[in-house]
């Protein structure tokens, strides 16, 4: 899924990333199947941009983000960050590469060790990757605390003494400590109060400008993604169904799933809200251990066609920079039906 429209250089290139978790069962712990949390995902993240990754819970957003930093051993595919394929690096090479890529976690309560002071938490990356003296580290920690808007006096305190927003600032300071280029923000605002969410998102934007950071911003909050992202990718059941520049995606979504997602965004104006027609999807997300045949979305799609149940839709660039994986947009609808008919004919022949 190369983005020809952009002249910028991609910092992160993900090609056909697969992350399958095996399921073991029985007395002999035989492998009986696998959860296809991420099943063939490809995208680029350009330098200095924010790529929003949205989707409902369980669709593989977080797994994708973690696999990108190789917190999991990926099943298949390549992840090129800053020119190096990190999917195949050895542990020691990976360790050297760690400073360029960092992560901000969803739950600031859980991502900070309750037994370490703020000083120790922010200093840990420095301990691991630099040879600064104690005094230099102290200074660096203070600088980072200033950068994320934390009072220096709090350096000796423990995480439980902070509010959710402050804790997330500590997590951001830790991620920034090694001057990374690429930060995966794994739902950094989902666990925060709405009033605090804006503060943290603005902080992330400020830091992006200040340090030239590149973000992969994972969220299920579509309005927040609209605010921060340059481009947006929509995931459903382990696959990216649509990837487009922000405005294109929000104003003219191509994939029926994206349409349904966007129609679920609450509208603050009650007079408009009353008129909004919501697309209510029927049924539940299929199990990622047993995805449906054909298009993953065919079990719930309001515009499902026969071909959707047969063939997996390839990802196409329908408009410049606007990719989608849907049979509706293969060419014109006429030919789509034709190919569907052909396909069915083929299937029937095969069956005989």
């Amino acid at each position, binding site marked *: 899924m190369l983005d020809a429209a952009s002249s910028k250089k991609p910092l992160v290139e993900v090609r056909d990333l697969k992350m399958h978790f095996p399921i073991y069962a029985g007395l002999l*712990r035989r492998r009986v199947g696998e959860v296809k949390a991420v099943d063939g995902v490809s995208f680029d993240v350009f330098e200095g941009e924010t790529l929003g990754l949205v989707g409902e819970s369980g669709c593989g957003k977080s797994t994708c983000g973690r696999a990108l930093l190789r917190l999991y051993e990926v099943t298949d595919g390549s992840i090129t960050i800053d020119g190096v394929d990190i999917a195949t690096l050895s542990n020691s090479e990976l360790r050297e590469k*760690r400073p360029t890529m960092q*992560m901000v976690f969803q739950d600031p309560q*859980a991502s900070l060790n309750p037994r370490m002071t703020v000083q120790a938490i922010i200093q*840990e990356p420095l301990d*691991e990757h630099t040879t600064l003296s104690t005094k230099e580290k102290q200074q660096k920690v203070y600088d980072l605390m200033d950068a994320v808007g934390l009072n220096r*006096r709090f350096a000796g305190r423990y995480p439980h003494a902070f509010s959710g927003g402050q804790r997330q600032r500590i*997590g951001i300071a830790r991620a920034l400590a090694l001057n990374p280029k690429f930060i995966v923000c794994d739902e950094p605002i989902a666990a925060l109060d709405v009033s605090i969410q804006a503060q943290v998102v603005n902080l992330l934007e400020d830091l992006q400008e200040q340090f030239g950071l590149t973000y992969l911003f994972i969220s299920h909050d579509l309005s927040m993604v609209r605010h921060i992202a340059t481009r947006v990718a929509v995931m459903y059941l382990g696959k990216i169904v649509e990837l487009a520049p922000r405005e294109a995606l929000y104003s003219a979504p191509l994939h029926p799933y994206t349409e349904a997602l966007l129609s679920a965004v609450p509208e603050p104006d009650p007079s408009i809200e009353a008129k909004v027609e919501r697309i209510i999807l029927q049924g539940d997300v299929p199990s990622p251990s047993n995805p449906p045949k054909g298009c993953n979305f065919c079990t719930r799609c309001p515009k499902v066609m026969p071909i959707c149940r047969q063939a997996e839709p390839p990802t196409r660039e329908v408009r410049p920079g606007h990719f989608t994986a849907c049979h509706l947009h293969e060419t014109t609808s006429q030919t789509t039906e034709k190919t569907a008919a052909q396909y069915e004919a083929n299937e029937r022949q095969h069956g005989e």
Partner: protein
Amino acid sequence: MTAAADTEHRDRFLGMKVTPLARRRLDNFRANRRGFISLWLFLILFVGSLFAEFIANDKPILVKYDGGYYMPIFTMYPETTFGGEFPTEADYNDPVLIKLVESKGWMIRPPIPWHHTSVNYQLGTPAPAKPGPRNWLGTDDQARDLLARLIYGFRISVLFGLILTVASTVIGVAAGAVQGYFGGWVDLGFQRFMEIWSGIPRLYVLIILASFVEPSFWWLLGILLLFHWMSLVSVVRAEFLRGRQQDYVRAARALGVSDAVIMFRHVLPNAMVAALTLLPFVLNSSITALTSLDFLGLGLPPGSASLGEILAQGKANLQAPWIGITSFCVLAALLSLLIFVGEAVRDAFDPRKTMV
């Protein structure tokens, strides 16, 4: 807010910095009066027993004889030093020698003038003798002072228990940590190994071993350790299984922190709470392990004082009930004290009580 921050840093306990959490735990521990008092009682008894040589010893602490000062508790003096006839070591419980010394000076003796090995030759009645002014709790069947043997037996039981507990904690925590942290096949293999290992009857191993080596203190410690380390593994393993899923462990991994450092810095401190709660009970079982071996005669070499050996004597000499009763009381008191301390430790680490 500022005042709170200042007191945080000023709060100290035994000279160490105390975090607010540790302070709450200390307070919780103290709030359990029974456990708190038990801890002090146990510490007094234990530290006292460490100085058993000054409390129960047949050798005087200081002797003044003929203008010179002697400290028989540290050095050996022949009887001739004090005007006796033989060049052998002086027996300070011998009435003749006492008379000789007191004619030309004095001696300061420990409150109990018997060592656990010293035999009372002036018993008058057949051993075991009843409690009396010379032997406060009577003697055992070899005319040795029972109180002295209890004090030394207490010391060796507690020391053995402590060393065994510390060693099995170190091994058990390490084994549990590795299993829990790495999980998968490491965990599975280790668990099956432990199931088989714990099926080995340790008593038979000891009986077989006793037939070709004389089981000394360290031998016994090593053999019991072979089986005792498993007591903490399951708890620590469970804590590590939970701990490795925490986001802060993931964060550390994203920083490139090595597994060993993550285990030590991030998971272990959080896993130790559960282990610490169990420790007094592990100590108790270590003490009873040695006692039961001594009771069966498979333990420490003959002649050494131990609670189990005294219990065995009590069973063999039912006509002398003071042996059985006193040794039972000492053992029961020791184990109860430790259980009470354990309950207080459990209270101290109870998350429901330490939460803000």
